């Protein structure tokens, strides 16, 4: 491809704050950052397991501290991000791996709904198993 003159072109620069320009971009960044909150939660949970390994006393000191309003708020916030992750994940999965029934792709919303139903079922099972232990 022959182009005559590149020297007169104006090259726009993308500002680092591009994700503030559009609501959809912002939601994208929120989705990506949800992974950070989830990871933070998992690290906290790891600490809990570590304390469990240190004995009953250490463990109960730690679990008692989780009752403080700060940690409750932390968990609530992480939960919001985690749920956001789940919902967006199920929707994107419907795009990445199209579900075909009888040769036809089923609507993405329907596939997302199926995924969400499965998610609720899995959560119920985990909840139930924990209660039954």
């Amino acid at each position, binding site marked *: 491809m022959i182009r005559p003159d590149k020297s007169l072109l104006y090259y726009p620069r993308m500002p*680092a704050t591009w994700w503030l320009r559009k609501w959809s971009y912002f939601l994208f960044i929120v989705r990506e950052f949800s992974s*950070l909150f989830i990871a933070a939660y998992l690290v906290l949970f*790891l600490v809990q397991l570590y304390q469990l*390994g240190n004995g009953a006393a250490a463990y109960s000191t730690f679990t008692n501290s989780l009752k403080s309003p700060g940690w409750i708020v932390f*968990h609530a916030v992480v939960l919001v991000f985690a749920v956001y992750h*789940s919902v967006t994940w*199920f929707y994107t999965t419907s795009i990445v791996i199209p579900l075909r029934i009888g040769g036809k792709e089923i609507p993405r919303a329907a596939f997302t709904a199926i995924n969400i139903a*499965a998610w609720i079922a899995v959560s119920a099972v985990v909840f139930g198993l924990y209660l039954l232990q």
Partner: protein
Amino acid sequence: MMGEALPNKKSIEPLWWGLFSAGGVVAAFLVPIHIVLLGLAVPLGWISDAPDIFGHWFVKVYLFVFIAMPLYHWAHRFYFTLSDIGLKSFRKPISFLTYGGAMMGTVITAWILLRL
């Protein structure tokens, strides 16, 4: 601009992406209920704590997957997010922090679970 023929290098990105995907699935299905159970319900006293459950070996295997996989999910997303928002010149150190962090997290998780 890249030329017509790209080097036939064995990119490792499919591996990271595979781990990221697996982690995303685990996180999507399991993290919310765990937060509800252990982060809210138990501390708020709605249900009683049951630490003994963590001692079963199959729960340990479950927890290993539950914790380690989403760490790769985080690593992959965070690495790209930071470069998307303008830190692409620091790609190398960021990749050490993220993917390296996830790998270290995997080892630590295994160690913590084994000493339970």
